[in-house]
Structures are given as structure tokens and as C-alpha cells.
């Protein structure tokens, strides 16, 4: 495990011999695998950050004989493009991670839910899947992976909406509980993990939890792949050790005029310059599924916010009231404030609405609309009003 530069890491894309790492995993007991993942401190790389080992432990504990491993490859968060790179360059490790998960929880079937816009990757992915199936057969293990394709709805990245979509229904989130570990796809216990999470698991098995633990902080172990975009001279995919401050990040990627960084995409948080030094990128500060968007002083934060709200008003599934109507109200509300059609104090009402959406929406989409709204309005109020 080599560390290069300031805190750039090359672990996730590191080449491994799949046969070697899988044989190693198959020689471990299910409990040992889960224990390794628990000890690694790995948290879901899709953004929500649920401890992966715990998810597996719960799914493993279910008595049901039919279980599923689902890989969430519906990378749709604005500004995230790291899973595309992983699918392109390290699909065999994603398949490996799914198979290891399958062993740990007692599932014989895996489903990759691939973002519709990534359909162009499918022929290549299927070729690699064919050789992967051959490989595990050779090792003497039984696990079958298939693909399900999304059609472009952002909401289908939400785990239960994703299950509905796989089952052929309209992609709408389910009520929770029950959680996927008890009742997921086809109402069977399901462990659903992000592409990067599954790839990371392979690396944890390869190097061991203790080695992986060397990276990151207490709350945010390891490294992660970031999608860097916006006003930066070096946009692209970068694997970085977790635990840096936004300032450290901006020092590396900023253009010298960075006024804000949107961490975690449209559903994430806006960090203004004055908070760069005190904000840690990770679960102790602002978590991210990988999206890092830099804005310099030429950008209107009103436009940024408007863009996000427009996105949510379109991409809410429309099922629950706080999200469907709340998104429209936030959008129309900021437009009216900007136009001067309502008093600027109307922003206070909208902030309260964002709070309601956070606690009363049915799923993570509606619950996170307020993140961008509140952090942009709080920090750039004058840009919204004038």
C-alpha cells in the first residue's frame, strides 16, 4: 500500500490477482470476513456511510435461504463520476466484492443495477463478467451475477426505489422499516452496496483490516475516490485519504479563487471559504459520495442553488408531499425572493420548510434537499437576495 504525494493514495485502483484474493476470502469463515470488514471501519461509499460490516452482519443473521447482493451502480449524484471509472477499470474487483459479500451473508445471487447512462459500458462489463463467472467456477464457488439497467431516474439510486425498479415497478422508495437487510429486492434479505464499497472490500481482504486502518481517521477510515469538478485546473478522479480539511483539498485543487466547495453533490453541503479550515471531509465533518465541486468568485451562488433545486423538483419521485411540493416551493420561493416578489425574510419560512423536509420526507432524497439549500442560503444570503 503506497502513499504518494500529500495524501493521494493508490489503493482502490491497485491491480490484484482476483484468483488469489478470492481464494483467500473463500478460505475464511463468513464470520471472519464480516469481522475483517467491521474492523476495517469501512463505511458505505455511496454517501450515506452506513458501516458495511454491520450491514453484512444483519443480512447474514436473517434466516431466509434466498438472499441477494445488490451492487448500486446507479451513480447519479450531480458531480459524481468515480463509479464510472471503477466500472471501466476495476469491474473484476466489483464482482469480487459482490462474491465475497455473497459468501459472508449467504447469498448465491448478485444483481448490478447499472445507471442507464452507463449502458455504453455494458458490453465490456458483460465480457468481464463472463470471465469472472469462469474464474469462480474454477475456484469451485457458486455465485451468479446479473445486470439490471436503470433508465435515468435519480431516485432509483435510493436503495428501496432501486429494488422496485429491479422488480419492474415504478422507482419509488418504500417505507422503512423493514430495511433491506430484512426485506430488500424481491422482499428477500439484501445487502446493497455501492460499487466503490465492494471494490474496497476486495482491497481490505487483500491487505487486511489492520493495514487498511492505517489510513484515515477514527470516524472515516481508509481512502476514497473523489470526483473533482468545477473551477479547478485539475478536474478528474482522485483517490485521497479521508480526514483532510476542505482547505487542504482546496490547496491542491483550487484555482486560487475558490469561494465555496459543494461537498457531496446536490444532496450535499456547501462549504464557504471562511469554513475551509475547520471543515473535515469525512463522516466527522461533511460526508461525500465523492462529488467535490469547486466554485470561484465568478459564480453566482443563486444560480448554483437554483440549479440544484430545479434538479430536485424534477427528480423527486413525487410520491411524498414534503419532497414533491417542498422542492417546488423552495425553487419558486428563491425565484420570488430574487425578483423581489416577496420579502427577503421569506427565506426564513423556506428554511423552516427545508427543516420539515429533512425530518418528514419519506426517503433520503427529500431529507437531503435542505442540505444544499440551508448551507448556501446561510452562507451566501446576499447573493440569493440581491
Amino acid at each position: 500500500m503506497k502513499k504518494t504525494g500529500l495524501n493521494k493514495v493508490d489503493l482502490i485502483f491497485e491491480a490484484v490477482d482476483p484468483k488469489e484474493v478470492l481464494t483467500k476470502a473463500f478460505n475464511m469463515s463468513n464470520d471472519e470476513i464480516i469481522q475483517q470488514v467491521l474492523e476495517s471501519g469501512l463505511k458505505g461509499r455511496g454517501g450515506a456511510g452506513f458501516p458495511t460490516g454491520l450491514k453484512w452482519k444483519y443480512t447474514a443473521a436473517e434466516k431466509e435461504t434466498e438472499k441477494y447482493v445488490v451492487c448500486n451502480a446507479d451513480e447519479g449524484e450531480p458531480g459524481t463520476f468515480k463509479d464510472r471509472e471503477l466500472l471501466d477499470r476495476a469491474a473484476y474487483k466489483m464482482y469480487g466484492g459482490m462474491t465475497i459479500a455473497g459468501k459472508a451473508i449467504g447469498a448465491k445471487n448478485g444483481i448490478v443495477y447499472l445507471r442507464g447512462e452507463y449502458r455504453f459500458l455494458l458490453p465490456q462489463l458483460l465480457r468481464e463478467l463472463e470471465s469472472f463467472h469462469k474464474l469462480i467456477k474454477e475456484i469451485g464457488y457458486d455465485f451468479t451475477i446479473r445486470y439490471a439497467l436503470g433508465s435515468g431516474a435519480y431516485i432509483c439510486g435510493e436503495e428501496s426505489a432501486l429494488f422496485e425498479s429491479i422488480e419492474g415497478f415504478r422507482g419509488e422508495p418504500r417505507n422503512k422499516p423493514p430495511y433491506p437487510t430484512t426485506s430488500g429486492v424481491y422482499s428477500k434479505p439484501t445487502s446493497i452496496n455501492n460499487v466503490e464499497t465492494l471494490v474496497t472490500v476486495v482491497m481490505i481482504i487483500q491487505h487486511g483490516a489492520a493495514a487498511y486502518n492505517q489510513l484515515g481517521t477514527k470516524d472515516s477510515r481508509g481512502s476514497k475516490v473523489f470526483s473533482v469538478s468545477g473551477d479547478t485546473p485539475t478536474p478528474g478522479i482522485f483517490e485521497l485519504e479521508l480526514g483532510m480539511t476542505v482547505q487542504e483539498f482546496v490547496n491542491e485543487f483550487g484555482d486560487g479563487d475558490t469561494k465555496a466547495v459543494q461537498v457531496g453533490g446536490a444532496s450535499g453541503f456547501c462549504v464557504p471559504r471562511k469554513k475551509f479550515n475547520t471543515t473535515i471531509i469525512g463522516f466527522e465533518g461533511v460526508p461525500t459520495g465523492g462529488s467535490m465541486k469547486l466554485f470561484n468568485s465568478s459564480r453566482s451562488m443563486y444560480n448554483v442553488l437554483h440549479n440544484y433545486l430545479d434538479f430536485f423538483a424534477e427528480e423527486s419521485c413525487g410520491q411524498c408531499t414534503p419532497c414533491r411540493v417542498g422542492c417546488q416551493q423552495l425553487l419558486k420561493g428563491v425565484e420570488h425572493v430574487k425578483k423581489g416578489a416577496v420579502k427577503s425574510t421569506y427565506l426564513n419560512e423556506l428554511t423552516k420548510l427545508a427543516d420539515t423536509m429533512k425530518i418528514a420526507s419519506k426517503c433520503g432524497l427529500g431529507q437531503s434537499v435542505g442540505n444544499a439549500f440551508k448551507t448556501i442560503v446561510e452562507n451566501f444570503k446576499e447573493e440569493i437576495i440581491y
Partner: protein
Amino acid sequence: MINLTINDQKISVTPGTTVLDAAKKLNINIPTLCNHPDLCVAGNCRVCVVEQRGARTLIAACALPVSEGMDIHTNTLKVRNARKHIVELLLSEHRSDCTKCYKNQKCELQALANEFAFGDTIFLDLVEDHNYTIDRSSPSFTKDDSKCIRCQRCVRTCSELQYISAIAVANKGAHQKISSFHDKPMSHVVCTNCGQCVNRCPTGALVEKTSIDYVWDAIYDPDKHVVVQTAPAVRVALGEDLGYDPGERVTGKMVNALKQLGFDSVLDTDFSADLTIMEEGTELLVRLKKALVDGDKEISLPMFTSCSPGWIKFIEHKYPEFLPNLSTCKSPQQMFGALAKTFYAQKRKIDPSKIVSVSVMPCTAKKFEADRPEMRASGYKDIDYVLTTRELAIMIKQAGLDFKNLEPAHYDSIMGDSTGAAVIFGATGGVMEAALRTAYEIVTGREVPFTNLNITPVRGMDGVKEATIKIEGCTDDWKFLEGAELKVAIAHGLVNANKIMKMVKEGKAPYHFVEIMACPGGCIGGGGQPIPTSMTIRQTRMKAIYSEDEHMVLRKSHENPDVIAIYKEFLGKPNSHKSHDLLHTHYVERDNY
């Protein structure tokens, strides 16, 4: 048992109970909107959110199963603020022309607004931002998207109870709406007009197409003779809209009210229900004879009842290959209509063109049925206007009648007599029971071998019911049926109808005769009945129907004196040429989308 506390009150409930139901047991009311006792949990309106101590977010009580040690609070500041916001949000998307709305004061959103959202409006009006449409294409109901709050009760009703899914959710986000296949008008899709969605819509988005004003116009037209017929299920439900608890029989008061409204003659659909039994029972026996004795392979069995226009449209859309299995008998409403402008007109010496024939039905599909082009056997439109139970209640209120204090009155003569057999048409299994009471007696000369004529195996709320009756001691004409076992089945709610149709399609249905009603519980749970309708309410109405039957002197269709008279004076005998002209019909194949 699971122990939890709600608002600091302890309660133990069975596992699987929702927090909403547990709270009900403690008499704690949690407001709801998308929730309906007949439907699966949706949890999408979020009005019922409650606070669970230790949870990151509020949780919808309707969708939250209890767990040990749960600490729930239903009325914290957080909850109240969220609820207020949610109701305000719904109002901002909803065209609130309440005073003009058909559902004014019967609207569940309005009731919530009254509790949570009075005073200044918080949010901006979104109604004009949406390109809302009003679909008036169905003869049975109007669909006004500007009143829709996306609770999806209608969608769940159409798929879970009726297995049709004529309406479903389309688009997402701000553009999400309840729509039909390719946004086609409701008249051009698989909709059966059953009105179950109308019955469950909490707002004015889905309402019956009302004929009230046309009926008033006819009543006040001195040139017109307006006859009205009332369906069996109306008399056990009308009271609910006029201040009575469910289950009250208001037959006499209803008849009096209709007279006071100004109808020239108040008659009973029960009369033509008895007539239906004579026609349909005979048709069944003829089919059985042709199939069993003559070995005629062309005869389609099982024979299906044809009283329920929602069911007729369902089979026309979904299983058109089985249309020959449908009885050719018109529904009682349409038999009545055809006779009102022929037999009745002759007897009363009235020019049939001057007769306006009105029916009061528990049903919205009857409005469609009355408009079918086949339904003009009299040379005129057999039924001019159909009123639902709800519409009649509105007319009674409009006329300022003190319904509760009305003296009971009797139906007028000529097509006003009825029997208990006709009354039970209103409940699932009723047509079957009535048919058996008569057919068995025709074949054996004896009453059906059930205590007090109550054929209990065909009664009750099971979705699909089956019964077998052994025919013994046949009269000479019917010797070929001696020892035969007549196998019958009954289904109510189209989801159950579909179960039977699947069996029939797979050749696994051993039945001779099948009764199907489109609505859950039969007509007592019809789409035109008072709102709300739930399983408990349907059961109460059903009890009232059977009690009405028990209280009748005559309980067998063939003993109805008006029926005996009409065969003697006008029709000849069941399935006669004249009967066929006036009382029988044919069906059409329709698209399945």
C-alpha cells in the same frame, strides 16, 4: 405482545400492529390522508408523522410497525409544525375553490386545513404553474387533476381491489400525476366506471358526474311524467348521508322523500330484480338442458350473472372470449327502464316520449350502462338519468326535507312490488341466493332445503365463495337434472372476479353458475354509496339487507304479484320473444388498455 408508550401512555399490542392503530386503541387520534382501511399502506402523504424518541427523523405512523420499548409522541411541537407544513404544501398544489366544489364540507383535505392550516397562507400558489386538466370524458365521473393531492388511494383501489389499473402514477417530481395509459381520456381506457376510486378520493379530484339538475328540470317540467326506481342497496345506506349510523334501513322514509321531491311515481328496482331472476333462472336451466341433455357443444358454461355493469365492462375489456358465458339478461335497472316506457306507459296510458325514467343506484357504472347504445329497446333511452345514493341525499337536503321525521310510505303500484329475494341483490351472493330459491323450486316443486330459505353458504364477505347444491326429487319436466350437483361460485370485487376468470380460462372452474359483482361486498359497497365505505360499514349494510329480506312477507321472486301479472298481461313467459326484445341484450369486445 409488544409493549410501547404513546404520549407517555403504556399499551401492549400484537406484533405487526402499526403505531397508528395502537394509538387508536388509546383513543389518540393521529390525522391521516393517504391511509384507507381497504387499501395497503402507502405512507406518502406524511400527514400522520409522529416522533419516535431516538429516531433521526419523524416517521409515518400508518407505516410504522410497533417495536418493543418504543417511545412515541404524536403531538410535539416538531410534529405539529411538520403537519402544518405538509397540509399547507398540499393546499398550495390544490385548486381550493372550496365553496364551489362538489366535495365542499366532505373533503378530507378541507377538514385537515381547518385543523392545521387556518390563517395566513405560508407558501406560494403552485396551481397556475401546473398544466392541470379536467377529464370529463367518462359518463360516470369527472377527474380534476387540480384537486388531486397524489395520495394514490385511487391508484391502489384500481389495482388492489379491482385488478384494472386504469389509472396509475405517471411522471415524477413536480410533474407527477395520476393518469391513464398514454394520458388517454378515461372513456377510452380499460376503466370499468365502478367508482371505487370516487368512493375513496379524499378530495374533489374524482367525483361522480351528477345528474341532479337534469332530474330537477324533469320534475318541474309539467309535460313530463317522471318515474323513479330505487336499487336494493340504496335503502340500507342512504341514511348514512342523512344523519343515521350505518346499517339503518330507511326504505319507507326514502319512498316518502322521493314522493315529496315530486316524482310522479316511485317504483322499485326490486321488481325488476325479481324479473331478472325469472329470466336469468330460466336461461340457466335452458343452458343446462341444452348442454346436459341435448349435448350441445355450443352452450357456454359456467353462466355468469350480468347485473353489475362494472363487471360487464371488465369482462368486455379483459376476457372478451368469455362474453358468450354472460347471461344475456339486462341488469334490473335496464329491464325496469325498458318496461317503464312500454308496459308501464301502456298501463298508465301515458305517451312514452313524455316519460322520464330515473334510477337511484349505489353505483356510478350504472350511469355508463344507461348510456350504452343497446339500452334503447323501448324505442327511447330506457333510463334517462341515474342518480347515486349520494346524489339522492343531496336532493333531499336541497328540498329541505326533515328526513329523520318523515313518515314511512309505500312504493306505488305497477312495478312497485318486491320480494326478499330481490332485496338481497344488494349484497354479494344475493343474486345467487335469489336464483337458487326460484330455480330449485321450478325444478323440484319444493323450497330450497335451507332453514328459513337462508342459503348461508353463499353469504358473507369471503372474496370467492363456492357452494354445491344437490338437486333431488325433480318434477317430470326436469328429470334430467335428478341427482345432479349444481356447482356455483360467487365473487365480489374485480380482483376476485379475475381469480375466477383465470380458473375459467385455465379450464379449472367446475361451476355451472357464477355470480360476479364489481364492487367489494356487492352493491352495498358500490362506488355511488355514501363516503366513507369500509369493511365494517359494508358488513353493517349487509346485515341490514338480510334483515330487510327476513322482514318481507314474500321472499321468492316467482311469488312477486307484479311479476306474475306482467308475464300474464304483457311478456308471456320467461325468455319469450317479447322478453328477448326488451329484457335481454348483447355485449361488445373492448381493448385491454
